[in-house]
């Protein structure tokens, strides 16, 4: 498969997954804000912090009001990681590999983009929860259509890699939202409000019901463990990375447990580290610090994949 095509399918999936997760961020905050007791200032800045683009935001918008933050994350066409922008990028990538992906996939991306574009023109802030739901569903539809209509060949595995790495990264960021929301008010830990926020967070990761089935009580350790280490839940970091590792080895035909390129080595190390970690270890060193480190390492895996397979070096 052409290197350029592999790269485009990888990014197509990353961008679709990214759009879905931005919708989740916005949603987690909307939900927890609704349950805040009267008089508590709404906190939207944490969302900006977790994107890693705080400087960009402050320069352009200044104050982190709900309207500012929501516009920034959803429809700001000058911010490359807004839902609108990533959809545009996803579509552009899909367009450049239309002949490789299935027509159904292309149509799904095209319609997804048209839906977001229309919403951005309508200024759909009043119907934001509905919009977030639409974005999440469209992303699922895309993944489903891809799974069911594209041969599970090399290109498909590159797509999986993109989606799973993006999802793992965003799960770390969703968890981080809670850390930043709670940061100014440590005295709330363990209160009903704390519970409600953890629940909102689980719901935003579509993990609430699955969590209840496996852990019952909602505790910070339980939630963090579920979203970081659970081996069966499809949005947990460990699950995503283990699946990504499988796809990577399908591409190269190298047996798991061994490696033949830096991407396999970086991802393999990360997976085995997670495999032998306990949640107590995580909290001992600080959840936020752990998440931060995860983001750096996932990022490195992405860079290695691109270097190994997609770099178009002049010959």
């Amino acid at each position, binding site marked *: 498969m*052409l*290197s*350029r095509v592999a790269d485009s399918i990888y990014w197509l999936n990353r961008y679709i997954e990214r759009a879905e997760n931005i919708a989740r961020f916005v949603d987690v905050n909307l939900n927890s804000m609704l349950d805040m007791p009267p008089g508590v200032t709404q906190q939207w800045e944490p969302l900006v912090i977790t994107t890693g683009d705080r400087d960009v935001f402050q320069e352009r918008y200044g104050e982190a009001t709900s309207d500012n933050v929501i516009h920034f994350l959803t429809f700001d066409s000058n911010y490359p990681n807004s839902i609108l922008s990533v959809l545009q990028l996803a579509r552009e990538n899909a367009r450049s590999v*239309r*002949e*490789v992906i299935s*027509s159904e996939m292309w149509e799904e991306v*095209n319609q997804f983009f048209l839906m977001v574009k229309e919403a951005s023109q309508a200024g759909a802030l009043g119907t934001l929860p509905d919009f977030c739901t639409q974005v999440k569903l469209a992303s699922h539809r895309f993944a489903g259509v891809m799974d069911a209509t594209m041969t599970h060949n090399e290109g498909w595995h590159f797509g999986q890699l993109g989606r799973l790495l993006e999802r793992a990264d965003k799960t770390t960021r969703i968890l981080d939202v809670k850390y930043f929301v709670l940061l100014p008010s440590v005295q709330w830990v363990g209160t009903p409000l704390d519970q409600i926020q953890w629940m909102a967070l689980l719901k935003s990761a579509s993990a609430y019901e699955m969590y209840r089935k496996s852990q019952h009580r909602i505790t910070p350790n339980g939630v963090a463990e579920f979203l970081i280490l659970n081996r069966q839940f499809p949005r947990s970091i460990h699950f995503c990375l283990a699946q990504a590792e499988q796809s990577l080895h399908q591409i190269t035909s190298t047996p798991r447990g061994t490696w033949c390129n830096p991407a396999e080595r970086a991802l393999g190390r990360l997976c085995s580290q997670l495999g032998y970690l306990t949640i107590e270890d995580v909290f001992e060193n600080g959840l936020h610090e752990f998440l931060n480190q995860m983001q750096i390492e996932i990022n490195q895996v992405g860079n290695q994949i691109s270097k190994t397979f997609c770099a178009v070096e002049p010959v």
Partner: protein
Amino acid sequence: MAVQWDLYNPEDFYDELFSAKGQPRQSAAALIKWMQGLRPDELQQHRETAQIALLKLGVTFSVYSDNQGIERVFPFDIIPRIISAQEWQTLEGGLKQRIQALNLFLNDMYGEQRILNDGKIPHEVVFSATGFLKPCIGLKPPSDVWCHITGTDLVRDREGQWYVLEDNLRVPSGISYVLENRRVMKSTFPAIFQTLAIQPVDDYPSHLLETLLNLAPPQLPDPTVVVLTPGIYNSAYFEHSFLAQQMGVELVEGRDLVVVDGYLQMRTTQGLRRVDVVYRRVDDDFLDPHVFRPDSLLGVPGLMDVYRQGRVALANAPGTGVADDKVVYAYVPEMIRYYLGEEPILSNVPTYLCWQEKDRNHVLNNLEKLVVKAANESGGYGMLVGSSSTEVERAEFAERIKANPRNYIAQPILCLSRVPTLIDHQVEGRHVDLRPYILHRGDDIYVHPGGLTRVALRKGSLVVNSSQGGGSKDTWVLNHFHE
């Protein structure tokens, strides 16, 4: 509001579907009867459904100078154009004859140049054509075929007489719209397809793939064919991607290709892989910066060397542009007589060549009655339609002609035939042309039934180019002969 077909008047034009007011042509009778039976507004609804389908499919073209965004849906009218089986038979024969002669001409131009030496075409006409590429002299493409894929533009005048307007021998576009329009028509009007015997068009990709595979060196068991595109910002990108997809071959850009070890290779995730046949949708000038434009990033350095050694095949061969120069066009009937010893089945539009003094004077004195065209532009650029021009524009063109007479030709303004077209809830006549697609395989020439019918959506306009506000229609070639 129902479409009032009884009010439709072909007026003083040749109409493709009606012979007179209220009188559909025999070939169109069944269609018109069926459309008359539609409920009020049903036709408009169908049009909207079709347009939405095309938008969702992303059947678009790009406009370079459009600030609104780079992609547009090609406007599509759902009233088809019908060509009877008899008419098609004549066109098919005429097109085959023409392509055959053009190919012999190309072979001659980059070889012995007999037709020039025999004085049938002046040397200077060919040597001054920008499409004549000196680096191609002496090349021997497989089976002596230069132009594998041609899109020839045809029009009909007020009397219904067919004329060839131009031959597009470089990288003709539009076949993807033919196939997508038909797909949308079939899903919009399934009923009519069951009653009329319309020649199917879906097998074009198979014919194209066969044509390309035939070009590969004979000893290869499983040759690799690719489509070479300039990239997603090219106006015909949709088509490049569509054709690659329909044939199941790779769509590559110049940056995916490299010449290594004397072969053309593409960069894959598993390393380099050899390419045997390139259907290139990149213009000659951009193919190889070592030979043609040195600033081009769209092509592949060294490609022409590999081509010369017969280690890769190109469709179309570089250099074909010399035969679709608008001045050389004037000599195609002569080529048919010279190479084939036959009279042309299809006529050229009478053409004045501005580099000849007598013609030039006539052109300069009659600008308002003529269409003036630059010899080397396409897409409706660089032309003057005399009847709808201002005095200032005519004066400007007169200067251009005097400054560079070789670059201009002029033709009488033909009154193009019309087809009923859905405009604001009613049908009105709009002018059309037709671009059939022809595949040349050496031993066999295939003419795809129908082609792209482009329609000038603006009232009275004769300009059908998509870049100038034109749309398209499905083209139905009927299967059975009327007595």
